[in-house]
């Protein structure tokens, strides 16, 4: 099928399958999946600028489907999502400006590659350690106590640090009854800003950093972090789509085709979350940033732009 906006020939079946896979990941983990979608579009000859912009447009559609499903399951904190969207947009702008600074210095590719490898490996290692420790601890306590249903149960070996952060009383304090947390507005904005910074600097929706930081820094239960992150991605990715579209980087026809597969995948992923406890979802998340790191390392050493 010929897509006249980006002047590329791509099989619609390929796009639907890629959309489906990313939809499953997005619905289950609350990530945009740009680290897979970008290279997948590059692989079939879509120019890099179109791959980035079109991927963002596709993320908007997929996140709407997954967030609606998560909302039906009671996994979306709308108040938190709206506050975070403000910080994310601010961070994304600063990230984009930083890119311009490094572009002028002539070392943008090297800096972005090194920073992304460090961040991806850091997140994976930390989440592997934390979820492993939490699962081992809950196994011990389950053996001692009576059986408890897995369902949406959540626990974290990092909880003492999260509790300490929640005790910082920097006004205004924001009450989030859906998440069961009261926390300073500034901490929420800071977490969102860092997520936005990563999104603007490294590309994509940056769900790989926002979802874990919602769990570990803000103390949001994993299921709610996944659903709220998706809701927040709708707003920030829409903004990103608009800015990329006016630069001529979005082939909306490709995004619409990908979205047909993503709609089914996202529903499947979102529904699957209710069968897994929080620490298991976090443990299953570990390979995702590693895939991102592997792609960056490959492009660094081979010189190929996937």
């Amino acid at each position, binding site marked *: 099928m010929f897509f006249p906006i980006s002047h590329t020939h791509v099989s619609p079946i390929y796009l639907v399958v890629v959309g489906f896979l990313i939809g499953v990941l997005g619905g289950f983990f609350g990530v945009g999946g740009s680290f897979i979608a970008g290279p997948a579009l590059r692989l079939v000859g879509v120019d890099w600028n179109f791959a980035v912009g079109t991927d963002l447009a596709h993320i908007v*559609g997929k996140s*709407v489907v997954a967030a609606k499903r998560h909302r039906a399951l009671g996994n979306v904190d709308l108040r938190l999502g709206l506050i975070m969207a403000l910080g994310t947009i601010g961070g994304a702008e600063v990230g984009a400006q930083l890119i311009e600074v490094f572009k002028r210095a002539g070392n943008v590719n090297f800096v972005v590659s090194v920073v992304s490898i460090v961040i991806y490996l850091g997140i994976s290692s930390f989440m592997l350690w934390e979820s492993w420790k939490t699962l081992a601890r809950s196994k011990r306590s389950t053996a001692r106590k009576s059986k408890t249903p897995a369902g949406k149960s959540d626990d974290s070996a990092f909880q003492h640090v999260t509790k300490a952060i929640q005790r910082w009383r920097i006004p205004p304090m924001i009450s989030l009854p859906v998440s069961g947390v009261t926390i300073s507005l500034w901490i929420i904005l800071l977490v969102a800003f860092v997520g936005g910074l990563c999104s603007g600097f490294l590309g994509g929706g940056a769900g790989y950093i926002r979802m874990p930081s919602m769990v570990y820094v803000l103390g949001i239960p994993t299921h709610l972090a996944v659903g709220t992150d998706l809701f927040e991605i709708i707003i920030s990715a829409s903004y990103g789509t*608009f800015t990329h579209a006016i630069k001529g980087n979005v082939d909306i*026809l490709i995004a619409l085709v990908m*979205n047909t597969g993503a709609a*089914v995948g996202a*529903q499947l992923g979102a529904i699957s979350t209710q069968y897994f406890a929080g620490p298991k979802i976090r443990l299953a998340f570990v390979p995702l940033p590693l895939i991102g790191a592997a792609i960056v390392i490959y492009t660094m050493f081979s010189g190929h732009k996937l």
Partner: protein
Amino acid sequence: MSQRSKTAVRRTLRAFAFELVIYAALVTGYFFAVLHFLGGWLVQLETQHIRVYAVVAILLILGQAVVLEAVTTGLMRLLRGGRSE
């Protein structure tokens, strides 16, 4: 895995496969009908009115997502006897 949960998984997978077939037929029709007619207009917008194109692009992807979510939820309800998950 107990016999009951095996049957439930089998029923879910069968419903999902059936759902995919119906969905694939709908999507194929959608490609050839809607995208074919929209293609020319969108290319024209992209080259002549880029800001309008940006707004239309977001509205299209949001609109399609809402419709697809309703279609998939409806299909799930239909095939699983009133349950959507």
